[in-house]
């Protein structure tokens, strides 16, 4: 498995989020804010986001951890732990 840096994970998350909510201005996204509220992301969107992260990074996010990828900071920390990022 490729080693990802936190910056890689941040970029990957934002890239997939931009595909789910293309209308959003992610440059001003509060990294601690819940994207479900900030960007009108519903539970189907979260499911698609998780599926996309799986395809992109090879990380399988179980249902119980969905809630951990609903903020940028939370997602980067979670993905880093799961992937052993540097």
């Amino acid at each position, binding site marked *: 498995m490729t080693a990802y840096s936190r910056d890689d994970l941040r970029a990957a998350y934002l890239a997939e989020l931009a595909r789910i909510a293309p209308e959003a201005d992610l440059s001003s996204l509060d990294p601690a804010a819940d994207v479900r509220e900030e960007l009108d992301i519903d539970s*189907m969107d979260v499911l698609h986001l998780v599926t996309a992260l799986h395809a992109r990074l090879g990380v399988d996010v179980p249902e119980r951890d969905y809630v951990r990828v609903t903020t940028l900071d939370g997602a980067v920390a979670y993905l880093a732990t799961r992937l052993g990022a540097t």
Partner: protein
Amino acid sequence: MGASGSGAIAARGTNAAAFGGVANHPRISKTRRADEPAPNVADYDEARSTFRWSDARRAFEGRPFGLNIAYEALDRHLDGPRADHVAIRWLGKHGEREEWTYRSLARETRRFARALESLEIAPGDRVYALLGRVPELFVTALGTLRHRAVLCPMFSAFGPDPIRARMTIGQARVLVTTERLYARKIAPIRSELGSLEHVILVGDDRASTAVPGTHDWATLVASAPDEHAIAPTDPETPALLHFTSGTTGTPKGALHVHEAVVMHHLTGGWALDLHPDDVFWCTADPGWVTGTSYGIIAPLTHGVTMIVDEGELDAERWYDTLARERVTVWYTAPTAIRMLMKAGAEPVRTRDLSSLRFLASVGEPLNPDAVVWSQEVFGRPFHDNWWQTETGGIMVANLASAEVRPGSMGRPLPGVEAGIVRRGDDGSIEEIVAPDIEGELALRPGWPSMFRAYWGQPDRYAKCFADGWYLTGDLARRDADGYFWFVGRADDVIKSAGHLVGPFEVESALLLHPAVAEAGVIGKPDPIAGEIIKAFVALKPGFAAGDALSLEIIGFARKHLGPAVAPREIAFVDSVPRTRSGKIMRRLLKARELGLPEGDTSTLEGPGSS
């Protein structure tokens, strides 16, 4: 341990030829635990044969003020031991907990009614709510009904376009929303909402607000006097306005009257098996009719404690809630159940869900394997039931006292006359009496919560009725034992995650994008949501199809329509197929999407003709 309720999946012979795949799903019989109350409907046939609407209505006569939903939900309990029973246990997004008794909730609704009076809102005026699952929603709803104004709840997941359409059609006079939703969805379109006089804002984290052109809830409502007498309310007084979608045209506002509470109450007992000591959790969004009929009214008329969770669907959170709050009756939706299935059985095994007695589902047909799954995991089957915005209450249901047939919506409730009909070319209606034949599900009008109008659209209302039937637009069949089975929609309306989405509303928004020449929208089958919204788009000259434009159009649609209504997939086509008269052939788009035979295309407009 998971739920320890007993129950058996018994294999029985079914008519495999008639039922196709359904025969693979054996019926589920149930046995009652010794500590459980007897089901409210002990014997289905007897309940149906002895039931009379005149008796049911008589039970609601003799109230001091006629028949008012708010009285039935709250005031009626205030002279007895239920007054200090917990009506709402509210669970905030971030772990907050708040309890409202029948007494304290009633007091707050009197204040809200007084606040409406102070704003000179007249009975019959429309009060719109754009709120999440917060206590203020319940106060708004019941305070509005006390005042005999008309409550119109909206989805907070709607974008500005659907909101504007609904507020314009219903001529909203008052809107109750949050500071955040106001800034995002209302402020940009406020100048276009000519009828809207008053906006009442609930502060984020419920703090006071100071937004120009709005009222602050904490000032206006919390400081209003808490004395208010319900004025005489005729049972036919308008009470609730719920918007729904058709294939064509603008959204339709189904109007219900105060008498609907008779149906809410009865069906809460019959189809949800509510008993006084129940802890009831209806997970529906308050913007949907289920969130009002069964998320507000029915549990309160039964005097039970209801759980209100502000948070979004999350398997761990939901199972924690079921276990911690000792939920006994749970009413949810197929999309949520399928998401829970994805999370597997493990989270159930690690929790004590033994309090669960009755599980029900609505919103779209519940797939049989989800019913079987629930029996295996919870030891309880989900009971699917069927109704729609127009019916105001549950019409057809699997009952606590009867075996569950996985995949079936159940049987018509007492007082409900349902049939399978065929529409003739001349508009006549023929009932199909023989079993196992597909046709349109139809109902004999006359139940209390039947819609009384589509707001301002008498022609569309009239079209729903023919030869003494209300035509539901759903295709179904009835088996020889009287169980109904959903087949599909008779029109092109899309059912996505329990939301009814009108393709015309989506197509109209897409056409506003500068690159879009034509758009046709369908529901594409999806394992979780039932259907997702997919748009077929033909571009204007000079625009190049591709990923970038596809994302741009999706973003555009999300901005206008909101995530629940915007397409999640775009396919570019040279032209959208139309009939010779110019109607979009959505069925053909769907057939192509599914790789099905396209059928008779002789009325299709050929390429090149215009």
